[in-house]
């Protein structure tokens, strides 16, 4: 079967909305378009019922015991901000110390930087070469003034899965709240807020084949009851934690996407992992000097982050222009700095510039993976033939011995 181009392998950035999700949403645009807060008429009640059904679907997808614990937001960035700022500000009297990890998403890191400007102390934990947080370092960083530990479930660049249950245990033992950004995790790796001792969990629809513009923050209501200071003030929606009219069609789509992800989980994760392994094996068989960034075992099934030594990432993206992937190369960012995540792993800047992130998802096929292998091999080979670094390495020159001019 011919591969339909362009080919989408950027499922960490976002995903296609599943047609079943679109079908579930449609009536709430044009038929039952009421405001879910309008309880006095049938349009409002239909909308409210749909939202409550979705809340149940979302709670079940993460192992939550109560639907009421789901706070609907505009997406994971808002959920991250609400969790981090909301908890820190609410518990300020208890302590002013926060802990997070160097490889977190910018939404979490920058929320912490904002809190530093409000006078909070923040510990940014390093990660090891695999991308995993050191539990002993986390334990050592906890103080009597620590109120919140924020660790993501699955990293958005390298896909590594942090040891959530162990982190939850450490936090519980010290009476510290544990917030987990699970935007890249729900539907991809097992998430169970009860079993993992999580107190706050952020996730979003568009990473799991739902629509963009809607997310959720799960907030534990018992043992302990977690309180947050809201970011938005207004009509008191979402138990006062997030005022603003709910985007009913998006919420319905989010619920449907979560239910679908839970239903398909076993088959889908196995199939996607097999595709990922096929991609990695295919690239390794045909290209020397390529390096996997991040641990292979503790990794979400759809992620592959590879450095193609001696080939700059953006030029590689240009060459495979009929395949949508992304790069940790500086040239794809406005800052000209290579990926801070790869740097935190101790990946040399030189290799960080050559990294490509493949994100495999529900709608990818074996034929597409084979096509991607062929294209990437072809372009890497062509670009290496015109790379002065590749030439030097072929001549036996150790690149570290060269005195570069820099700029």
């Amino acid at each position: 079967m011919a591969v339909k181009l362009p080919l989408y392998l950027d499922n960490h950035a976002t995903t296609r909305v599943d047609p079943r999700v679109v079908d579930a949403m449609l009536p709430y645009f044009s038929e039952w378009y009421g405001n879910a807060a309008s309880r006095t008429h049938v349009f409002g009640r239909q909308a409210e019922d749909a939202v409550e059904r979705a809340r149940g679907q979302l709670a079940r997808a993460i192992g939550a015991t109560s639907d009421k614990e789901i706070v609907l937001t505009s997406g994971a960035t808002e959920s991250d901000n609400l969790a981090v700022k909301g908890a820190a500000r609410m518990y300020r009297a208890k302590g002013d110390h926060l802990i997070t990890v160097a490889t977190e998403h910018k939404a979490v890191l920058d929320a912490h930087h904002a809190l530093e400007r409000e006078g909070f102390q923040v510990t940014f934990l390093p990660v090891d070469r695999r991308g995993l947080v050191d539990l002993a370092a986390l334990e050592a960083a906890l103080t009597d003034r620590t109120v919140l530990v924020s660790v993501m479930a699955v990293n958005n660049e390298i896909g590594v899965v942090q040891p959530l249950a162990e982190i939850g245990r450490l936090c519980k033992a010290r009476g510290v709240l544990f917030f987990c950004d699970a935007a890249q995790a729900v539907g991809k790796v097992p998430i169970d807020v009860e079993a993992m001792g999580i107190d706050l969990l952020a996730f979003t629809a568009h990473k799991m084949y739902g629509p963009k513009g809607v997310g959720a923050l799960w907030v534990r209501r018992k043992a302990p009851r977690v309180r947050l200071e809201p970011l938005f003030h207004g009509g008191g929606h979402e138990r006062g934690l997030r005022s603003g009219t709910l985007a009913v069609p998006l919420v319905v789509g989010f619920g449907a996407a979560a239910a679908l992800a839970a239903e398909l989980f076993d088959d889908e994760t196995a199939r996607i992992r097999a595709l990922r392994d096929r991609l990695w094996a295919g690239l390794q068989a045909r290209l020397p000097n390529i390096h996997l960034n991040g641990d292979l075992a503790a990794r979400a099934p759809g992620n592959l982050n590879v450095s193609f030594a001696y080939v700059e990432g953006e030029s590689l993206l240009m060459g495979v222009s009929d395949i949508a992937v992304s790069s940790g190369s500086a040239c794809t960012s406005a800052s000209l700095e290579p990926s801070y995540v790869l740097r935190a792993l101790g990946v040399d800047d030189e290799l960080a510039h050559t990294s490509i992130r493949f994100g495999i998802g529900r709608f990818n096929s074996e034929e597409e993976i084979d096509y991607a292998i062929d294209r990437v091999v072809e372009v890497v080979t062509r670009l290496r033939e015109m790379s002065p670094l590749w030439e030097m390495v072929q001549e036996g020159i150790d690149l570290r011995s060269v005195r570069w001019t820099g700029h």
Partner: protein
Amino acid sequence: MAYSDKVLDHYHQPRNVGALPKDDPAVGTGVVGAPECGDVMKLQIRVNAEGVIEEARFKTFGCGSAIASSSLATEWVKGKTLDEAAQIRNTDIVAELNLPPIKIHCSVLAEDAIRAALADYKAKQQSAPNR
């Protein structure tokens, strides 16, 4: 990022990719940039007895704009005397390739590569004057 048609053209059909024998006294080689910065350019020229650049080659590790800048540089130096080649400015490359501000450093590197190749050739001539 949107690339100009000229950048895409040079990226897909780079001119003068390859290497000249770097120990040849008639060949000047310039290598500029650094791998940790994400771009390295090697530009080589072969100068004939009349002092005219008759051949140029490049190899570049870098983004599409870096590849295009060095490809264009090899086209431009060919047929020029050493003095004429030294007149090529990075701003000319920016204008020709329509580079956005964030890619100006690619053109600077290409100008540096030309100068480094010219300097290498001249240094060789001074150490072996009776060629």
